[in-house]
């Protein structure tokens, strides 16, 4: 048996928990290939879920991290398009077959390894997701819902207590309103953070290590609310129309559903969560989807003829990203109210029984799967009262998981009693804990994947960290048992102090060892400041949920709690202001008051005059009712108005409703006017070219330009480059004369660096509008560093090494100029000793609402990554909604419904070099140092690019105008490449590829790093150094070349933020001209040089960071840097 297979199948934990890395470090290329073959064979044979998944992750890691570093591994290779297509369609097994066949034919190479790694990674997670889905569906008690395909099959009936109209004092004698069932649910906080052990797979594979301390809490926002209340509410009532009415008070959305298929359309509106709850509660069973049955018939069966249901959700303005599992708690609350109303819980009101809570929790998992989202298994903890220990359970013979995974899907809940956590300790906890929302809202999905992956690989450091985290967990549980603890020197201490010390140790130790990306500059800055200001009264920090920056906790001495609340708010606010452009903030920070909720989810029946919905609901509904002619109002609508009118005069919870209604009916236009003014002002300031904009709009609308028109003619021949087309510098073995020429140039001050920083890194933060250059993306040299800082540190090192200052130019745009200038000033240019110049952009575009034609092209004709079944359904429904949006908002019209900065776009990096000519920066530099001859241009995210003397020398000696650096392609390198197009060697953008398959025939990928000979470049513009002072000449020259550059239409995502941390992503159209197209100009002598991947790799997506750190790239970059 192979060594790795024996590790997987070992029954001895010591052997089973051995790390893959240890084995691979000592193995040769052939040994690794043999192990891969054995693992591949083993994973196909094995029937055990755990063994298969672990083998898949071993295969992934070997192909991703170990094989590429082996001596003798070929770098250049091609990935078969067919395999890539399989990957996109989630047919991972087929993809693996294609890639393995290619590997057998061409021999192992870097390209195929990357493709195999992607396929194994995908298959691993697909296998896990399938298992969770199978477990959810096969749980006894859920299966019936998948069998119901007709209203006549439906076995649920509404509880009689809800199904009779009743009179109220405000309404007519025989009024028609029905009682309201209200469920109020606390949210949960995780007091321990035991290494994300509530991820389903961890609980199912390592139930012994899956433990959390989960506390149900009520919340209030300090300065806004009077006292903590359960943050989540769900309301249900019968209505006298055969429809389903859904309303979300916090999102300000409501819908009346008359068609069954609309219930399954999750992304059509903001009510997806409510829909998922109704389905998971069995009211609209999942089995009826697509049956074509009538919703009215179904409701008749459940509620009665002519009747329907109204369901209202309310989250008391708790912002998104609080890491308190608000959305799962709301889902649980909604499911619970629906289950109570249909007799699926014995108690209509009051708390739930244990088995009912478990059922609701299981249904919440089903609901999350239906809605295409997912949380951890502790997230529905708010259903339970007080404090509880939730832990994984070994699967027993009666469990559906038995024989498939070691643990059960659903954990066990042990509610802590007075011995486990006495009342005094609970009080002390509440007296010392300050809960905050830092304002960042980030996607934790990639983090959870990383945790699963690292767990399966048992990487030494991470595995040790996990064991340490479990030890810290035990310390916290022990500390909770005693109201007073004795310190080492015999002094009585508050247990919260011990807990605070433990959670802090956990955050800075095990948690960051497992996932370095949980922390960020913002979090560490506020911890530092809080520590400094509170001194010994600061007892600890504790991270909530998947990552920090959103919901977080600080433990402080009880006597300073109130001071600490306002102090932390100030600290967070001021830190946010400093970092606002560098990190994705969704909202202003908040501080909460909280109280432990000792009764869990709880329902009440509101009858007669008490049958009142939350205030915000009336704010939404009443204006609509008032607009309807009195005579057309239904009886229940009239009664609703009557009852509301009487209640609004007498009930304290409806105080202020008059003001709210007034605001709703006569909204102030001031805010939107302001923003449109500033957009106009900004356009005017930036010299926005309205004529060009209108011309582009006209061409876009008439179909002359568009996504499909970006492409080269279909008859263009595109083939891979041959041996002599590319100079191979990837192994670093260049002749000495190159090195000498380079060193001579640097020493004589002939070189400067240009970093392109005009963009906002749409992919980096999914369109959040963060200045990517300023993003402190990773800890290097012990501190968080921004992209700019890394580039300056490389220039500093090169300058010192050759004893010559290296001027560094950062190109900016209207989106990035002011933030970068401000940040550099605040950081004192990171102490950069050489000249540091900003080159402001001179071109700007206004985003447009996309053409439906382009959206369809992007979503339907281009190869798309297919998602998991449910997630895919949600995405398709979202695409429909966005196409509707584009149609209604007007295709091709200006996109102005957002913050001004989010409506503008930079017009592509081609303009950045001409900007240098036009804005006087190059002129100034040349005047100051006439010896300057060469520029090294690179993208902000190409972290490995530095002024390497040998590469520079090669460029000088070749006599080229431009030398582009390229790298061998891996599967993730999408978007064009180096090709021979109709005989000419040039770079082709992905947008311009006439056929998706062409790209897969190209073995080199553009890094964008370009060595430029200034005079030759100027010549290609028809200019000389002396002409740079002549604005008109320069402008005319640029216009002439620009006209020859293709204009690409692109569809990008832009985020629109609203409410309390809510975000919508819209597609917008913009245009750009790209630097790589310079290689298409016949008069420009462009050459190409292959460099190592570590030098040429670009970081486009935050999900790449972990691999970048692990494969040694981060170390490579660190070695090039010299920090201030």
């Amino acid at each position: 048996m192979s060594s790795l297979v024996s590790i997987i199948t070992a029954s001895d934990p010591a052997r089973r928990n051995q790390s893959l890395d240890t084995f691979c470090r000592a193995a040769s290329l052939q040994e690794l290939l043999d192990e891969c073959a054995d693992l591949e064979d083993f994973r196909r044979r094995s029937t055990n879920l755990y063994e298969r998944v672990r083998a898949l992750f071993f295969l992934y890691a070997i192909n991703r991290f170990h094989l590429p570093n082996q001596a003798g591994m070929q770098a250049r290779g091609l990935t078969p398009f067919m395999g890539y297509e399989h990957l996109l369609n989630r047919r991972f097994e087929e993809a693996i077959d294609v890639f393995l066949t290619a590997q057998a034919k061409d021999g192992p190479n870097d390209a195929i390894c990357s493709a195999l790694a992607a396929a194994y990674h995908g298959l691993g997670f697909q296998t896990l997701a399938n298992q969770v889905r199978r477990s959810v569906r096969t749980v006894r008690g859920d299966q019936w819902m998948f069998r119901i395909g007709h209203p006549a099959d439906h076995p649920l009936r509404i509880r009689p207590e809800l199904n009779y109209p009743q009179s109220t004092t405000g309404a007519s004698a025989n009024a028609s309103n029905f009682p309201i069932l209200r469920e109020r649910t606390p949210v949960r906080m995780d007091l321990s953070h035991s290494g994300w052990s509530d991820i389903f797979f961890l609980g199912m594979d390592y139930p012994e290590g899956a433990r959390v301390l989960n506390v149900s809490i009520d919340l209030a926002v300090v300065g806004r609310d009077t006292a903590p209340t359960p943050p989540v509410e769900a309301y249900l009532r019968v209505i006298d129309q055969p429809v389903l009415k859904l309303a979300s008070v916090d999102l300000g959305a409501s819908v009346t559903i008359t068609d069954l298929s609309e219930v399954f359309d999750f992304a059509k509106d903001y009510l997806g969560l409510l829909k998922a709850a109704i389905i998971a509660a069995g009211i609209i069973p999942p089995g009826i989807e697509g049956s074509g049955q009538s919703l009215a018939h179904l409701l008749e069966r459940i509620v009665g003829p002519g009747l329907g249901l109204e369901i209202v959700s309310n989250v008391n303005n708790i912002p998104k990203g609080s890491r308190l599992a608000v959305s799962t708690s709301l889902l649980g609350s909604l499911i619970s109210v629906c289950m109570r109303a249909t007799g699926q819980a014995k108690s209509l009101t009051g708390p739930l029984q244990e088995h009912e809570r478990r059922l609701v929790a299981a249904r919440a998992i089903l609901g999350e799967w239906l809605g295409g989202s997912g949380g951890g298994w502790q997230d529905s903890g708010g259903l339970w009262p007080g404090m509880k220990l939730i832990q994984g359970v070994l699967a027993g013979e009666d469990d559906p998981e038995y024989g498939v995974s070691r643990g059960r899907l659903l954990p066990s809940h042990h509610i802590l009693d007075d011995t486990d956590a006495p009342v005094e300790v609970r009080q002390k906890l509440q007296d010392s804990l300050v809960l905050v929302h830092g304002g960042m809202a980030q996607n934790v999905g990639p983090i959870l994947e990383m945790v699963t992956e690292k767990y399966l690989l048992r990487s030494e450091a991470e595995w040790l960290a996990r064991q340490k985290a479990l030890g810290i967990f035990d310390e916290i549980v022990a500390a909770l048992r005693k109201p007073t603890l004795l310190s080492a020197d015999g002094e009585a201490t508050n247990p919260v102090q011990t807990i605070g010390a433990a959670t802090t140790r956990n955050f800075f130790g095990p948690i960051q060892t497992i996932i370095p990306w949980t922390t960020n500059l913002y979090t560490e800055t506020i911890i530092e400041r809080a520590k400094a200001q509170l001194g010994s009264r600061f007892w600890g920090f504790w991270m909530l949920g998947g990552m920090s920056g959103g919901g977080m906790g600080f433990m402080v001495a009880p006597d300073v709690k109130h001071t600490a609340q306002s102090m932390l708010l100030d600290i967070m606010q001021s830190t946010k202001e400093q970092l606002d452009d560098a990190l994705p903030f969704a909202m202003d920070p908040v501080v909460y008051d909280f109280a432990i909720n000792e009764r869990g989810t709880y329902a009440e029946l509101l009858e007669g005059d008490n049958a009142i919905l939350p205030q915000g609901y009336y704010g939404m509904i009443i204006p609509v009712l008032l607009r309807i002619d009195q005579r057309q109002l239904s009886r229940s609508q009239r009664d609703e108005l009557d009852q509301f009118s009487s209640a609004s005069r007498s009930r304290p919870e409806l105080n202020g409703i008059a003001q709210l209604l007034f605001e709703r009916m006569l909204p102030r236009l001031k805010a939107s006017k302001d923003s449109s003014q500033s957009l106009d002002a900004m356009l005017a300031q930036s010299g926005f070219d309205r004529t060009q904009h209108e011309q582009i709009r006209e061409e876009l609308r008439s179909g002359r330009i568009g996504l499909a028109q970006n492409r080269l003619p279909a008859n263009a021949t595109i083939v891979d480059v041959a041996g002599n087309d590319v100079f191979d510098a990837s192994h670093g073995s260049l002749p000495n004369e190159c090195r000498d020429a380079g060193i001579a140039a640097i020493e004589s001050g002939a070189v400067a660096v240009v970093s392109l920083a005009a963009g906002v890194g749409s992919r980096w933060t999914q369109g959040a509008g963060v200045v990517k250059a300023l993003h402190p993306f990773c800890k290097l040299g012990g501190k968080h560093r921004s992209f700019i800082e890394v580039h300056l540190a490389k220039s500093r090192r090169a300058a010192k090494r050759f004893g010559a200052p290296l001027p560094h130019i950062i190109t900016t745009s209207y989106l990035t100029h002011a933030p970068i200038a401000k940040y550099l000033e605040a950081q004192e240019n990171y102490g950069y000793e050489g000249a540091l110049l900003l080159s402001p952009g001179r071109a700007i575009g206004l985003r447009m609402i996309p053409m439906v034609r382009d959206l369809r092209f992007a979503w339907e004709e281009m190869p798309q990554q297919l998602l998991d079944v449910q997630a895919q359904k949600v995405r398709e429904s979202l695409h429909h909604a966005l196409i509707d949006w584009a149609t209604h908002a007007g295709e091709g019209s200006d996109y102005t419904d957002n913050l001004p900065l989010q409506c503008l776009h930079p017009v592509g990096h081609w303009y950045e070099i001409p900007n240098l000519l036009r804005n006087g920066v190059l002129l100034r530099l040349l005047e100051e140092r006439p010896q300057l001859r060469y520029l090294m241009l690179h993208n902000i995210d190409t972290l490995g690019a530095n002024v390497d003397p040998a590469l520079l020398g090669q460029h000088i000696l070749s006599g080229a105008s431009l030398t582009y650096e390229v790298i061998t392609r891996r599967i993730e390198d999408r978007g064009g490449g180096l090709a021979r197009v109709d005989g000419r060697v040039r770079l082709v953008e992905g947008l311009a590829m006439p056929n998706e398959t062409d790209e897969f025939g190209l073995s080199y990928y553009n890094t964008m790093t370009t060595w430029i000979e200034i005079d030759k470049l100027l010549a290609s513009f028809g200019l000389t150094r002396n002409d740079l002072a002549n604005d008109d000449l320069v402008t005319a020259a640029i216009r002439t070349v620009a006209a020859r550059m293709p204009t690409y239409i692109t569809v990008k995502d832009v985020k629109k933020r609203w409410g309390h941390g809510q975000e919508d992503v819209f597609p917008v159209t913009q245009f750009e001209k790209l630097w790589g197209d310079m290689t298409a100009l016949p008069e420009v002598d462009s050459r190409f040089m292959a460099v190592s991947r570590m030098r040429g790799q670009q970081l486009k997506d935050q999900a790449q960071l972990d691999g970048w750190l692990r494969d040694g790239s981060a170390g490579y970059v660190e070695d090039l840097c010299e920090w201030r």
Partner: protein
Amino acid sequence: MKIRKAVITAASQFQRDLPLQTMVDRDGVQKSALKVIVEEAISAGVEEIAIIIYPGDENTYLAAISNYASRLQLIEQPAQRGYGYAVYCARDFTGGEPFLHLVSDHLYISSAQADGHTKTCAQQLIEVAETENCSISAVQPTRENMLPYYGIVGGRRVTGRSSLYTVENVIEKPTPTEAEQQLIVPGLRAGYYLSFFGLHVLTPGVMAILTEQVEKSDEAAKLQLSPALAQLATRERYLACEVQGRRYDIGVHYGTLIAQLALALSGRARDDVLAQLVELLATRELTGSNE
């Protein structure tokens, strides 16, 4: 075990007129539904019958079944405290003997034959009860959409007996989730459960449990039969039996009509009724509905 006594419950305040409706039996004789039920019991060899009635209904009930008056005892249920309490009211009548229990809103049509005669559902059940010597309830497999209407039993098949089950649990009108978690019977189709048929043979043990429950609960509390039967299953051998026949609930919409049709189509007037039905269908004016 010999079954001599039967208890029929008919004391529900809102359904007490149901058994008094006139039907035409298999032989073409007009009689009340109650009489059909009483005859079902008598067919099985029962000698004495108690009917639990709503206070004041004595005369109307006696009039409906006058010719069996000698075997009958009418017992008034003093308070509307649920089905279980109604059965409890017959404790003195049963006096420590096992008894056949029928509900007054169900009619049964048997499909079992013996010696050229139809063997009624009550006969079938009593026969098994006397052989097995324990409490036994008639059941039939029912789809889960009918769960809101019946008591459901969970259990497993008695080895070697295709229509006999050991009862392990009983839940009245369970939710589909409860049914799936607690009442699945191996061997039944997915989504099918064993629901009560309204026909039971019960041992004195049931009366003992009901008495305990009455004593434990306060005076206003409702008592159901299903929890008592669930408890019975934990105390003594309790079986369920699929009888050959069908039950007709006259308490639901069109229940009486369907029951009457079923009676007619299984009796002497079958051809005549069929002919009239066909004529009715053939001459029915087609209205716009395409459903």
